[in-house]
Each structure stands twice: as structure tokens, then as C-alpha cells.
């Protein structure tokens, strides 16, 4: 494979100043987030359409644990705060703080996933399986899709954290961290909607 080592000339040839003044990757990510809104929108719509149409129990009010999930939600919100702190630190070249907050963000994401794992196994124990009723199917597919997004985010954050530990992530990568943050905040916002629709409005 022949790569160009003369990156400066390539960058100049491509004109890094984009027409809209926004980095290509960042704009693509906004487009991706727009697309994801439709994905989660369709899943949430499916949940709402089938609300109250389960033929057998367990029904949502018998099984959903609002205090526990409120804690998970708080945890995820705090992870967004940690993400903001990580980006701010990396932008001002404070890699010590940057590493710390990247790790905290990923850790809070992992705690959320642990909570979801506990919740799923608890529900299974209570008799709500994927195929038990429409509530089970729509609940697991919706929250499971969200959980998969959190998992991808955690892997992504840990990748950046390891890069930072190896000294390969610096302020020159602030944009990469910012895009990671865009994704992470989006996943957080989606959870707020899911928490409201599934847990709070029963």
C-alpha cells in the first residue's frame, strides 16, 4: 500500500478550510445523529403503539422500578458532565485531567450498563422474557438498542483513554474527543426520552 507521507501537501490540496467552516467529520456526525433520531423514534413509536396491548403480564406497573432507574439516569447524566470536563481538559492540553475524566465517563457508562444488566436479569427472574408479551418485546428491544449504543460508546471512550495513556492523544485530537462527546451526549439524551416515556409515564 502506498501512502502519502507528504501530509502537508495533501492537506493543502484538499483545502482543510471547508465551505461551511465545520469539520467534515463533525458534520457527518451531526447527520448521523439526525439519522439515529429516526431509528430511536421508530422504536419509541413502536413501544407507544403497543402500550397497554399485552395479552398477559407482567405489566409495566408491576415490574418497573423507578427509584433504581432514576439512579441509573442520574449516573448517565453525570457521565455527560464528565465528558464535558474531559473535552475541556484536552482542549486546554491538560492531559492529566483529560485522562481522568475520560476514564470517569467510561466508568459511569459501565455502571449504567451494569444497572441495565441487573435490571434485565431481575425482570427475567420476575417472569418478563423477550417473548412473554408485547411489553417485554418492545421494552427489551428499545432499551437493549440503547444499551448497545452505550456499549459502543464505552468501548470508544476506553479506546481514547488507552491512546491517552500511551501518550498518543493530545490537544491535536480535541476534535476526535469532541465528536465522541457528541455521540455520548446524544445517547444520554435518548435515554432521558426513554426514561420519561417508558418509566415515568406508565
Amino acid at each position: 500500500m502506498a501512502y502519502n507521507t507528504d501530509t502537508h501537501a495533501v492537506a493543502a490540496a484538499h483545502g482543510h478550510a471547508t465551505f461551511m467552516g465545520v469539520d467534515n467529520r463533525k458534520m457527518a456526525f451531526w447527520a448521523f445523529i439526525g439519522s439515529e433520531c429516526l431509528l430511536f423514534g421508530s422504536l419509541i413509536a413502536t413501544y407507544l403503539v403497543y402500550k397497554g396491548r399485552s395479552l398477559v403480564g407482567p405489566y409495566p406497573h408491576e415490574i418497573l422500578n423507578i427509584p433504581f432507574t432514576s439512579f441509573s439516569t442520574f449516573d448517565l447524566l453525570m457521565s455527560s458532565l464528565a465528558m464535558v470536563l474531559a473535552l475541556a481538559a484536552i482542549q486546554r492540553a491538560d492531559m492529566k485531567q483529560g485522562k481522568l475524566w475520560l476514564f470517569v465517563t467510561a466508568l459511569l457508562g459501565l455502571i449504567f450498563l451494569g444497572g441495565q444488566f441487573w435490571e434485565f436479569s431481575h425482570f427475567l427472574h420476575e417472569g418478563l422474557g423477550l417473548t412473554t408479551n408485547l411489553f417485554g418485546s418492545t421494552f427489551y428491544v428499545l432499551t437493549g438498542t440503547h444499551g448497545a449504543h452505550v456499549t459502543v460508546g464505552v468501548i470508544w471512550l476506553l479506546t481514547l483513554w488507552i491512546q491517552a495513556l500511551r501518550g498518543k492523544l493530545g490537544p491535536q485530537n480535541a476534535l476526535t474527543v469532541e465528536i465522541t462527546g457528541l455521540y455520548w451526549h446524544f445517547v444520554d439524551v435518548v435515554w432521558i426520552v426513554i426514561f420519561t416515556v417508558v418509566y415515568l409515564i406508565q
Partner: protein
Amino acid sequence: MKSWLTTTDHKRIGLLYFWTAFGFFMIGGLEALIIRAQLVRPDGGLGVSAETFNQLFTMHGTTMVFLALMPLSAAFFNFIIPLQIGARDVAFPRLNAFSYWVFLLGGLFLNASFIAGPLFGADGLSVAPDAGWFGYANLTSRQFSPGPNVDFWLLGLQILGIASLAAGFNFVVTILNMRAPGMRMLRLPPFTWMTLITQFLVITAFPVITVALVLLMFDRFFGTHFFLPAGGGDPILWQHLFWMFGHPEVYILILPAMGIISEVLPTFSKKPLFGYTVVVYSGVVIAFLGWSVWSHHMFSTGLGPIADSVFAGTTMLIAIPTGVKIFNWIGTLWGGQIRFTTSLLFAVGFIAMFIIGGLSGVTHASAPSDLQQTDTYYVVAHIHYVLFGGTILGLFSGIYYWWPKMTGRFLSEGMGKVHFWLTLIGMNLAFFPMHFSGLLGMPRRIYTYPAELGVTRFNQLSTIGAFIIGIATLVFFWNLLRTRWRPSNAPANPWGGATLEWAIPSPPPVYNFTVIPTVASRLPLWQTERHGPMTPLPDQPPAPIHVPGGSWWPMITAFGLPIIAMGALAHLIPIVLAGAAVVVVGIYRWAYEPFEM
């Protein structure tokens, strides 16, 4: 060979898209010919079984929509858009290569179902999808479709959706961000504009069908009841989700063709596009309204008078911006110095045929009349007038127009005219009688019909027409092939076009533009009332231009997806995990390989 496998050059990817999509177009056409040969007389002309017939019409529709028309448009997006906006490549060259490989592998995966029967212990060779191209629930359930047929369909479409979405993000960013200096939004060529609108529809519509397919996958693989009444599920939900994707998809198919003829008509009339801004805005309006009409596919499900009226109203509204475009195209021709090249013939053919398809579309918009037409050949006539008479004729027009730019070689105008007239006669012979056979009560998707129905004559005409289209396509294929042995003598601007792709040699050098032009008007190469033509670009770049090298990782990452799908088909979790591992490794190597843009 290696340079093609690893290429990230948008022009090469465009050619790969073109030839692959054209191959699938031929396969889809062959399926159509078998269907028509079977229907040439009552009780079956070929002795095709009901099962095979179901597979043929399902694969014909799926192939033409997802493997022929969309990727043929994508061939032009790839080749032409960076040239029209004055860029050296798309925003994400490797993602672009990834889209192509995913499309190719997804298409091969779908078509592999034709010979995969023995692997699944089926009676015959073929286990191709057989539930129709819109796969209505609960025909697609395990109960009614126990074999792997529908699994091939739902997994294949999910793979193809990834290709479309990746291309969608890529082209939105390319068009908005990679424009040459001075190329303001209302200086974008109309084809670029329609492409931009199309990509917005892609990135908003494909997530919806992805969800529908995932839910169907859960029903079939894991025993949920999303679309199964036995567990409280509602088959109508499938129709809502499918058509919320499916109607924007119609505009995903037609808007690029509208863009193409909005380039061709001005060039061959030597007049600027009449009402450029109105053409652009009506494209935007069509896309917006395209999101509010999906239930007109579902009048017969009994939505109730209010929903019926609303969706009938929005559907009729779409006729307004569409009609606006048609009058603008006619206005462009009006008083122009018209040259009847093959490309222009196809563009004019588009206008005429699309009007017929549009008019029958308005008759579907009216709910009471639609109830008479649902699931009859009248609908088949409509869809073929808009997608063949519209999209295909538009794409042909684009091929004759841009082929010299893409290859440096001219297609034969003489053979092109034979191709055009055979196509036009063939399609009207094939599809016009379907209006009558449909209104006389012939249902679509039946493999035989009784002579007493009185539709035999119409079916015979349709079959003759279909075979004329087949001959026309062979003429076209030969025309394409023979250019390989023709001299590479196309000048930079053979038709006198006004847009930037004509400012550079044919075929373009790998870096496209020796210097990035600065754009001062909507028609940079023409002398207009207010602007002179731009100064020609230098023959040689003033400084060496470095272009990004190739990469294996887009193709390798793409290979993981059909592996996952094959594992799912065979219910073998280790194969699914192996495919996922390929994707993950591919993404990491891709992200960390030294590839500068």
C-alpha cells in the same frame, strides 16, 4: 486489479457502482422476462410453479429498487458530484469505498439465495425471497414462511441499508462542505441539488426500515410477536413502518433522475434551466411532502375517513411541485436551440412517461378509486411508468450525457436512437395495457389467470413489450461494450455544457482539477447576460498534487457483514461472532491507518 480493490478514487468507485448495478439490472430484467413469458397466456405459458413465480416477482422488485436503480444513481453521485462542485474527491473516500463493497456483497448475498437451497435441505435449488418486495406481515412470519427465503431478504436488506446510510452521510457532507469557493447553494447544479435532497431522504428513511427489519428479525429468530396477531401484535404496524420508509424511497429513486434531466435539457436547448430556483425549491417541497403520504399505500386496511382524507390530500398536494417541475422543463425546451441527441430524447421521454405515471398516481391518491386499484395490475402499471418511464429513462439520459466524461469515449448515437425508440415502444406496449388488465380485475402477483377474465390480449401485449425492452437493453449493452474499442477522443466539453465537470478533460485526471476553480455564476462555462465564461483551467497543475493512496480496510470491513448474515441464516453464533470480529478489527485498522485527506 489491486488498485481497483483498494481504490478510494470517487471516479473508479463510480464506475464500479455502474457496472455492478448494470449487472443486477440485467438479472432483474431476466426475472421480469420469465414473469412475462409465464403470463403470455392463461393458465401459464412456461409452466412456472407458484413458488418459483413468488420468488421471481419478489426478487425482481427487490433487485430493481435496491440493486439496480439506487446504485445506478449512486454511480452518478460518485462520478459526477465531486466534479460538479469543484472538489478533488468526496469528503470520506474510504467510507465511499466501504459503501460500494457493502452494496456489492449485500447484492451477492441476496442473489445467493437462488442457489442456496441444498444448504438448507430445501426441495429445490432456490430459496429466494418470496413474500413480495414489501414483505407484508404476517406472510413473512415463521408460520407462513418457514424456510430461509424471508431471512435472506431481511438480512440482505439490512446489509444494503448500511451501504446507503454510509453513502448518505458521505454525500451530505461532500455537497455541503467540499464545494469550490463561490459555489453558493443557489449556484449548485440542479443534479447536485437533487442528490443532496435525496441523501437527506436516505439518512432519514433508512433507519425506519432498519427498525422494521430488526423487529421482523426478532419475530422470526427469537419468537417475539411484533407483527403477529397471535401474541397481540399488529400486522398493520409493519405496513406503517415499511411505507414510512417506502414512500420517501420512491423519491430517493426519482429525484436523481429529475436532477439528471435538469442538466440535460438546458445543455441541449442551449438555455439555462427555466426557473432554476423554483425547480430546486419544488424538489425540497417534494421531499418534505414525501414524508407525509405513506398511508396512501394502506387505504384498503381501513384507516377510517379522517386518515384517508388527510393522506389523500397530502398525496394530491405532491402533484403541485411535481407539475411545477414539468412545466419548468418544458419551459426550458421552449424557444431553445434544440439538438435531438440520444440523451435529450431520453430526457424528453422521461417527461412524457412520467406525466402518465404521475396522472395514474393522482388516481391512487383518491381513496375510493384506490380501493378499486389496490393489488391489481393498475398499480403495477403506475409503478412502472414512474420507475421505468421516470427513473430508468432519466438514468439512460444521464449515461448518454456523461459517458464521454466518464470514459473519454462516445456511445454510438445511431445505436442510442435505436435503443431509445425500442425502449419507448417496448415500455408503452408492456405497461400501458396493464392499466386495463388491472381495472378489469387482474390481481398482481398471480402466476396464472383464467381465460374468462378477458385479459389475455392485454397480457400478450405486455409480454411482447417486455421482450422489446429486453432487446433494447441488449442493444444498449453492446453500445456500452463497444466503446472499449473505440478511440478515446472525447473533448473536455463535447455537448457544450455549463457546469464544472465539463471544464476538465474527459476522462478527468486522478486529481480532477489542476487548480480548484472559483465559481462566480450558476453557469460557469457559459456566457450569460451578467457573467462571462470562467477562464480555462491550466493544463498542468502548478504544483504536484498528492492524492490519497488506497486502502484494504473498507473492503475487509465490508466482508464482515455478509459473514454475520450467513451465521444468522445458519443459526451459528460462532460465525456471527467471527463476522463481527472482522468488522471490529476492520474499523480499528481503518481508524488508525495513516490515510491523510
